[in-house]
């Protein structure tokens, strides 16, 4: 019900009530809940409530071998698992003084960008559904599936590929893979016009998303916002460009920004990034055949691998923002401490709580999906 249609009946002292939004709710991403206090349909107070999928990843990792953790880390973010593997592998390489061979670095970039495309298709598909438009979400999931086919061909796994290992990647690309990837990129690019007509330039969406969940640049910086959500406020910061890892410094791409800082701007940034990821992947498919060499550096027996003592902080740009791993080793065969800094630990808690205040109940789902929050990054 809209606020202007609401006629209060006599139920003093107020017409405020509390509502549990989730943990089972189509407007919530993953197993997560939001407790809101509303007056009519306007949100007065909001409190994030996590812990519904707590598996204790960080504790589990302390009890497993360095190599075993590779099967665990991608599960921290289902829609975009690859940055987790890469970030963890980089941390272990850092501690061991290992360097992934050049070809492996290009393969990692390829896999990261494939994952980013898949995650963005999922993200704006999900966002569309929160505004009552279901076709873009079906299209998004269907097109993401084509990318998952390529993942399956490359790694054997559709969602969790576990393709990276410290020192490089598990194997090289299969014959003809790059051609099939290139034709998929052509197809996805041709689809953008359809997505524009259906979603990004659709007035139903634009009027629904504009000026909702507005985040100014000053607030974004103060609240620790990163990734597409930060770029939607006009700040061109991208870990790939400003704190480069792998071979991103040899690749041309633009850091997409928007000015609005609202739900609309955040989606448009993701749309732009989808195009940029296609551009990056084209460079990878063009360069990869000329780069020869192994796809992984020699590593010790992984079942008896004592990683030298030390600590490191590695960062990558995931589809949701800044992802970082703080890893401490005491020279044993298991990590002493792994701390995962997921971008959603900011977006899904403090930022969402603050943006929800004053919003209408029907927009909470939209705000959450526009922030592209991933609850397991909170419940590590």
């Amino acid at each position: 019900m809209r606020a202007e249609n609401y006629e209060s009946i006599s139920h003093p002292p107020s017409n405020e009530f509390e509502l549990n939004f989730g943990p089972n709710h189509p407007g919530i991403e993953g197993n997560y809940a939001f407790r809101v206090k509303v007056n009519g349909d306007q949100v007065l107070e909001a409190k994030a409530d996590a812990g519904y999928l707590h598996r204790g990843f960080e504790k589990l990792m302390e009890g497993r071998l360095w190599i075993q953790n590779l099967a665990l880390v991608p599960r921290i973010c289902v829609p975009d698992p690859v940055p987790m593997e890469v970030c963890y592998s980089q941390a272990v390489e850092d501690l061991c003084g290992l360097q992934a061979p050049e070809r492996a670095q290009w393969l990692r970039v390829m896999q990261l960008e494939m994952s980013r495309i898949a995650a963005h298709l999922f993200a704006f598909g999900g966002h569309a559904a929160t505004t009552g438009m279901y076709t873009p979400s079906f299209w998004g999931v269907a097109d993401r599936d084509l990318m998952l086919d390529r993942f399956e061909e490359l790694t054997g796994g559709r969602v969790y590929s576990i393709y990276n290992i410290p020192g490089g990647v598990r194997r090289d690309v299969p014959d003809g893979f790059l051609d099939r990837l290139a034709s998929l990129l052509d197809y996805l690019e041709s689809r953008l016009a359809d997505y524009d007509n259906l979603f990004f330039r659709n007035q139903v969406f634009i009027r629904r998303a504009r000026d909702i969940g507005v985040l100014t640049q000053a607030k974004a910086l103060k609240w620790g916002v990163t990734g597409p959500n930060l770029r939607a406020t006009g700040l061109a910061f991208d870990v790939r460009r400003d704190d480069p890892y792998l071979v991103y410094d040899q690749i041309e791409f633009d850091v997409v920004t928007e000015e609005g800082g609202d739900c609309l701007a955040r989606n448009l940034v993701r749309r732009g990034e989808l195009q940029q990821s296609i551009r990056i992947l084209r460079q990878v498919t063009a360069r990869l055949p000329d780069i020869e060499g192994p796809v992984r550096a020699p590593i010790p027996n992984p079942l008896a691998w004592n990683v030298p003592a030390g600590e490191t902080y590695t960062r990558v740009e995931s589809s949701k923002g800044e992802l970082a791993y703080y890893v401490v080793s005491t020279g044993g065969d298991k990590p002493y401490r792994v701390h995962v800094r997921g971008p959603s630990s900011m977006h899904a808690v403090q930022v969402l709580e603050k943006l929800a205040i004053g919003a209408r109940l029907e927009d909470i789902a939209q705000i959450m999906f526009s922030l592209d929050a991933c609850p397991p990054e909170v419940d590590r």
Partner: protein
Amino acid sequence: MNSEIEPRLDKLLAGMDDVRVKLIRPRRIRIDVPSESLPTLLELLQGKASYVHLSAISCVDWIDNGEFELVYHVWSYESQSLVSAHTRIPRDPGVYLSIYDLYQPAAFFERDIHEMYGVFFEGSPDMEKFILTEWDGPPPMRKEFNSEEFVNQNFTWEEYRPEWLEEIEAEGGGIVKPASHARR
């Protein structure tokens, strides 16, 4: 530009005798600082050196030394470098100051560390339970907490014998348990 960061930070922190600045690799700086000087250090880094983004606060339990190590990772969008400020506090009583006034994202990390390690941050806006709402045991990320021991004490193991497993075992296969992992 990066090679200049270390001398610049040395100059900025010249008045603080008890900090040690070390360039680990390009764009990564480690600073070791005693716990009483950390808030001053962060204030200087934020106010005078543009380290405005708190990337994370990590806690490490050094149980053998009776200490918690707190690591504050701050990033500067201007000089494009990351400072990790390391400090140590005694494990007992495990109380420290909140830096929420300087960095708002600290609220999440401090609440998380409080819940998982039992470190209380004075001045933090919310120290309520967040993830482990129905948990009344010890803070589980502490090294003395052993998950497997806890499970063995509080739950009973059930035999898992589906039909398909029996079929496989009849053919000589099945779940292989290394001796070191045998539970009973």
